[in-house]
């Protein structure tokens, strides 16, 4: 099993694609280690939010993504 990472907006450019599977389970340190350095730097900033299986993660440092889950990396929105 794996954890699916989904990169939204410009993070997809930085990550080299919109999605990537990494070995799970994954905590906050594991996520940062699994990311390209540029993306990891962005995700550590306050503006980028995380969602686990579609629900916002209130405290990114407390991330606990089990095998088979999906982590979305959400930069600031700019819609409509």
């Amino acid at each position, binding site marked *: 099993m794996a954890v699916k990472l989904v990169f*939204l*907006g410009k993070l997809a450019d930085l990550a080299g694609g919109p999605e990537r599977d990494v070995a799970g389970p994954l905590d906050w340190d594991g996520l940062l280690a699994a990311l390209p350095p540029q993306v990891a730097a962005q995700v550590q900033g306050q503006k980028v939010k995380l969602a686990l*299986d579609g629900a916002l993660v209130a405290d990114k440092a407390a991330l606990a993504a089990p095998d088979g889950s999906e982590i979305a990396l959400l930069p600031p*929105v*700019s*819609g409509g």
Partner: protein
Amino acid sequence: MAIHVHLVDQPFNPGALLGPFTNAHPGYGGLASFIGAVRGDDDVRALELLHYEKMTRPGMEALAEEAAHRFELLGLLVMHRHGVMEPGEPIVMVAACAQHRRGAIAAVDYCMDHLKSDSWFWKRELRADGWHWIEPRDQDHSDLARWSK
């Protein structure tokens, strides 16, 4: 009270949606609507809106429920494109039916502010020199702040 939320990747015809929506609400007092389209006034050749399947549509549905309750609507229609669009193509349409005009107009205003700045969309524009991601504007955040007074 009927709420319709659509997230589509194909062009849509606002007029063809507005007629049936109006007809579905006989006895409405006021019907307000807004259509946003890709502007054709600068060198933008195309616009792409990205969404996140697990969150964008659920977020739009929650927004519509909130607006319908807050403004005591009889009906609410929210239609949003994603994907690549060309200048002139509609991006978004909101239509609200209410007994009174202020509720209908305010509901459209509210939904548009939240779709623009508090919904899970990411926008980029294709100009002569390639694609550019659009950052949120301060104006969007101040528009949004009006509703939390």
